[in-house]
């Protein structure tokens, strides 16, 4: 009856085969690794099957929890700074009354930090932030703002702050472009009508821009948190690669990497990967639930 439809399977076959062999197979293999004490050397056949021991360890692993909260903290600060700058700039450039020129130039300029390789960024900032010879401390000293150099990368709070700030610096241009696109999609009539009705800047921002921008903001939020949970290269390269100072820059993926590749605990590293996987799922579910709920609300409101 539906004979013709079956042909479609041939067309999706290449994707499915690639997906199964390069995505699903490794995922399942990783799960198998997570049940062993494989060291990453000497072949998986020589590793012992240890059941759920690794998972038991993960639930009691203070280092993992620390890494989890570090990741959230750094990502949260980074997202707040980034969205604040991007939103501010987007509002400035889209303001009907200001009519700023040179949007294209600025858009390119803001995006520039994003195209520098992260290794260079890390090197650059580790030199800038150096305790005794860094330009930043030299500048602050010369301006008389501080009397002793601050050991930026040796203080957990400062170090996390800097990673958040550098991340925000690298990504605000990207967010700005997305927000600009979103804002220019809002009909100008809304603002004109509001203006005529006597709405001030704040009203039109909270009553028009924000609600209209909601889907875009959610998109920014989701992509950012997915990227944020996988934060790795910048904190790795900025200090000693093990999360110095005192574990403050130890993110979940750095922890996974070190357990697997530095300490040769491949099995446990696979378990951490699954822990990360579950955390990502939880965050995704929460986010999707939020979207779904907001849609329901609108529908109900419409009915009434």
């Amino acid at each position, binding site marked *: 009856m539906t*004979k013709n439809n*079956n042909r479609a*399977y*041939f067309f999706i*076959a290449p994707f*499915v*085969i690639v997906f*199964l*062999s390069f995505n699903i*197979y490794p995922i399942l293999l990783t799960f198998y690794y997570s049940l062993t004490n494989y060291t*990453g*050397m*000497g*072949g998986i056949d020589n590793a012992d099957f240890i059941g759920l021991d690794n998972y038991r360890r993960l639930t009691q*692993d*203070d*280092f993992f929890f620390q890494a989890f909260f570090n990741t959230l903290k750094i990502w949260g600060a980074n997202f707040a700074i980034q969205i604040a700058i991007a939103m501010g700039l987007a509002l400035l450039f889209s303001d009907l009354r200001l009519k700023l020129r040179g949007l294209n130039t600025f858009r390119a300029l803001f995006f520039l930090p994003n195209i520098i390789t992260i290794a260079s960024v890390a090197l650059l900032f580790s*030199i800038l932030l*150096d*305790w*005794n*010879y*860094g330009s930043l*401390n*030299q500048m602050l*000293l010369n301006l008389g703002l501080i*009397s*002793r*150099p601050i*050991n930026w990368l*040796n203080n957990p709070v400062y170090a996390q702050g800097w990673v958040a700030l550098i991340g925000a610096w690298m990504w605000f241009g990207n967010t700005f472009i997305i927000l600009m696109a979103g804002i220019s999609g809002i009909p100008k009539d809304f603002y004109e009508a509001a203006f005529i009705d006597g709405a001030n800047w704040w009203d039109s921002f909270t009553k028009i821009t924000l609600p209209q921008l909601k889907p875009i903001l959610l998109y920014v939020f989701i992509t950012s948190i997915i990227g944020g949970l996988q934060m790795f290269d910048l904190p790795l390269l900025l200090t*000693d690669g*093990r999360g*110095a*100072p*005192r574990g403050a820059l130890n993110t979940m993926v750095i922890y996974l990497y*070190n*357990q697997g*590749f*530095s*300490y*040769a*605990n491949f099995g446990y590293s696979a378990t951490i990967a699954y822990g990360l996987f579950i955390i990502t799922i939880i965050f995704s579910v929460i986010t999707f639930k939020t979207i779904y709920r907001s849609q329901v609300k609108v529908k109900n409101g419409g009915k009434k």
Partner: protein
Amino acid sequence: MKNSWKLATLLCGAVLLTACGSDDNGDTAETGDTDSDSGEVDLVINSFTEELQYPIDVFEERHGVNIDLQIIPGENYVDTLRPALESGSGAPDIFTAEIIYLLDWVEQDYWADLGEFGVEDWSTDYPEYAWELGRDQEGTMKALTWQVTPGGIFYRRSIAKEVFGTDDPDAMAEQFSTMEGLMEAGEQLKQAGYRLFPDEESVSGSPFTMGSNPQPWVDEDENLTMTDERMSYFDYAKELRDNEYTALAPVWSPAWYASFNEPITYNAGWDEMEEDSDGMTEVFGVSLPSWGLPHVLKIDATETAGDWAVTSGPSSYFGGGTWIGVYEGSENKDLAFEFIQMLVNDEEFLTEWVEETGDVLSYTPVMDKISEGYEDEYLGGQNHYDYFLAEAENIDASNVTRYDQRLDQMFGSAVGAYVEGDLSKEEALDSFYAEVQNAYPQINVNQD
């Protein structure tokens, strides 16, 4: 319906095929390198430096063969090469390893047993530590090294003369033979307006953390060894910082390099910067392994050429080192071994090479000949070959464990947190133990 089942079977089949396919690849590559069959490449060598290019050129000329040197940058080397060695697919004929993971690799089936080629007969011609580190726990010889990398304290003769009244390496070695002596020298230098070292890594990065009592970090029963000397290192590190014996220029930083040539700004000019006040200081010396002389000092400290000397610190140590061996599954083992033989055991070639690079080689017959009556102008006429070869004999390979690099780093961080005043000594020690236990659950850290 029927058709979709067929398709499903087809898909499963396809997946199985790809899975088997990859296995097949593994098998074929283990038995034969496809490259060597099709092209004219006779040997593939993987390494992380270009150092081997020169011996390869010589070998190619001598034997009329074609060698492909594939360089994988150091930071990716392990992660790139290890999967190839594990699976046997795409593995080279010869590959090198750094000391950091050498001891892990010799225990695997990556390198062929060099004993088959009779290398054991050579053992007396090499410093013991360099030879023994290439051996696995069962005694099989897996990898050899062509250089030795003992470390020492390089110092400026003019400053030594001014402050200590002598620039004689033996007298200085006497002064530096204990941590107390080193600190005392720091104080004397500071009084005279100099700094002992540019960086704190000159003390902490090298195994002076072990004081004059080197012990392996982890013994045969996987117990962590915390010696009194290591514990007292907490205090020395604090003394070093609190008394400002170093210029706090991070190792490899621009200021660090500058300190070899000229006075550098100390501490960004901060501090209640007392009398001497222009905030500049000259640095007395630096700890570097043997390769630091040709590759760091002679290149970057040209203005002070002739003013340097090298001597020993509180303990003998070595820094870095590259080992090389034949891949277990190589099809061309004999040729591969011939290359290694030339690299580590060929008098004619090694004499050429040492003259070319100035490295300290592991093959003592050549080194003995070279060092006889040798005087290095850069070191004010000192014979550093003699020094390094003697130092190499003092290093005990049984103190080296596969954990060293990581444990040194972790211990360094713990000491650092104490020095900064962030943690008390007990807290720092606890955090070190916790970190070790977490990274290596198999180690017993329980300190009675």
